[in-house]
């Protein structure tokens, strides 16, 4: 029998017992549907994160900090290093994480590492409030990620880093709170920022709003330009003795924007050798992706369990079908059909059932998913602009098809080999 004839006959055979085929297809449908949806969820979220990374930009910036010596919870503290910094709380990693404070000498060490063009301390500014035209004072948090980041602006033109003008970009969420009529209306206005110094005196700094920023995954704080950051920092330090050393939790290292992945890795290795840890924005956001991938893997695991259960359904269906067609198989063998082709006939039937199940499953999943995704994007996920929670990638759908058909084939091997080994006389005997 030719391959096309085997395919045609197998397809025909699978429709011979419609109810049985329908039930088996239904079982596969459930697994394929779930798998398509969970994959789409993973693709959707990861796409969003990737878009976020690319919109944030900063491909040439690395955050560098000095990790504390790792000690097991049961060990005592690590010995003190002469001249080493004290531990600082950090906003990186799990709550309670600490890093060793960095000094200006550390910055020089970082800047000297090959591939790094400059190293600047990330200055932690802690403004008290922001206010516009007596509409009330509101807490202001300044994003620490600002260095080198491309802002996703909803309005305005963004910073002019060269001038000495004090500039601020506010998140969209601040716009109505502060009393602006619209995003565009906020641009060009002057807001007052309150800062308390070391001896308790509050200073007021005026800054121009040059843009309104869409909220992103990495916080919804305001961004300040270098001039404003410095102004706030200086105001904070008013009253401190001039000899007080400055300590930083982390620093920003710039490197060549064209650096390849291996060059970046080399820089990170050098930093590690020097006692620092460097991570790019992509690394930091990449941890989100790892978590998302982990969750999707577990969800996919459930879908695969459903598919394996459906695989037993296929075994059952085919065994019954082999039983029913004993005579027919015997006849075909008597007519010179080889065992291999009989095997192919039954396994093709299973693969076709798998194909039907995954086609219907993926099709319904895409239809339902597109609908749900759009409803969610306009509903309770509207805060995350650009997030299409379910995204159907052709490659992942093709993977679902391949997986389901693979499982169907595996399931068919038992009944199909039973059919292939069947002896023609046993099948044709009727005495």
């Amino acid at each position, binding site marked *: *029998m*030719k391959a096309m*004839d085997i395919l045609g*006959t197998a397809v*025909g055979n699978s429709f*011979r017992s419609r109810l049985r085929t329908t039930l088996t297809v239904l079982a596969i449908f459930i697994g394929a549907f779930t798998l398509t949806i969970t994959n789409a969820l993973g693709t959707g979220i990861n796409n969003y994160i990737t878009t976020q990374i690319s919109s944030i930009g900063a491909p040439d910036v690395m955050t560098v900090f000095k990790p504390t010596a790792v000690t097991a919870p049961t060990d005592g503290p690590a010995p003190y290093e002469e001249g080493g910094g004290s531990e600082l709380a950090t906003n990186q990693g799990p709550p309670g994480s600490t890093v060793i404070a960095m000094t200006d000498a550390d910055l020089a060490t970082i800047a000297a590492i090959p591939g790094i063009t400059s190293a600047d301390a990330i200055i932690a500014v802690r403004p008290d409030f922001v206010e516009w035209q007596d509409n009330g004072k509101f807490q202001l948090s300044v994003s620490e990620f600002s260095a080198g980041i491309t802002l996703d602006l909803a309005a305005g033109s963004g910073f002019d880093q060269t001038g000495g003008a004090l500039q601020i970009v506010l998140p969209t969420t601040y716009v109505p709170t502060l009393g602006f009529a619209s995003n565009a209306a906020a641009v060009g206005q002057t807001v007052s920022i309150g800062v308390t110094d070391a001896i308790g005196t509050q200073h007021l700094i005026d800054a121009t709003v040059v843009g309104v920023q869409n909220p992103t995954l990495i916080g919804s704080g305001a961004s300040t330009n270098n001039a404003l950051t410095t102004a706030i920092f200086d105001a904070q330090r008013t009253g401190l003795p001039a000899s007080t050393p400055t300590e930083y939790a982390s620093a920003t290292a710039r490197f060549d924007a064209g650096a390849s992945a291996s060059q970046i890795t080399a820089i990170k290795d050098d930093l590690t050798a020097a006692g620092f840890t460097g991570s790019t924005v992509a690394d930091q956001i990449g941890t989100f992706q790892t978590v998302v991938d982990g969750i999707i893997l577990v969800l996919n695991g459930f879908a695969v369990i459903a598919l394996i259960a459906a695989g037993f359904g296929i075994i059952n269906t085919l065994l019954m079908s082999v039983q029913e067609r004993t*005579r*027919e198989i*015997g*006849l*075909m*063998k*008597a*007519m*010179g*059909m*080889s065992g291999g*082709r009989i095997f192919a006939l039954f396994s093709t039937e299973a693969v076709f059932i798998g194909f039907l199940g995954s086609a219907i499953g993926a099709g319904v999943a895409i239809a339902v998913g597109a609908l749900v995704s759009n409803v969610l994007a306009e509903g309770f996920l509207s805060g995350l602009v650009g997030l299409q929670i379910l995204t159907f990638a052709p490659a992942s759908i093709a993977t679902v098809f391949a997986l389901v058909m693979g499982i169907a084939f595996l399931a068919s091997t038992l009944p199909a080999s039973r059919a292939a080994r069947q*002896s*023609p*006389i046993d099948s*044709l*005997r*009727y*005495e």
Partner: protein
Amino acid sequence: MTATVLSTRNLTKHYGSGDTRFDALKGIDLDILEGESVAIVGKSGSGKSTLMHILALLDAPSSGELVVDGHSAATLKGKALNSLRNRTFGFVFQQFFLNANASVLENVMLPLKIARMGSRERKRVAMATLELLELGDKAGNKALNLSGGQKQRVVIARAIVNSPRIIFADEPTGNLDSATGRIVEDLLFDLNRERGITLVIVTHDEDLAARADRRIYLHDGLLVAAIDEPAATAGRHA
């Protein structure tokens, strides 16, 4: 001289072993010539079906030699065996073994499909065969909807569609009334006479056996008499 298409020497077949050992065939020497019609006659349990299965290469003998169309059966394996089965044999069974839900044409085309004949060609050959058996108008019908006689004619069409050298007929008229059975018998013997297809009929029906050129009587796994003319022994094994 006519060639021998089937030849056996001291053919035996047994099932089981020890106490449960059952000897179905106890040493059969047989030669069937090209174009001959042979009836293998015997009661239930005489071993006639076993013999037919072995002759048709559906079963292997326990010992002894079988030569089919010049090929020693013991050496035939895999592809060669399947190809020989497909090209050389046609089968007519008492219980038809038609695929009930497929069309008559589909059923008749099955051996050609197995022989990997192209779809248009096999349709043409199968239709020609159906016309020959006056079943052309039934080609599209489901096998399910045919009468017994029509079914057996479809089975004969299927048996001859690949132009076999030998047709094995196992109780071909067993499920038919005598009038219909007569038509089917005529068809088989016509094919034998006009096309020179060797006909091997397994039956316990003496009347059918009587129409064959030669009758072989099997009793408890042994040939008891092989006679060329209808003889007085007829009826003993009915």
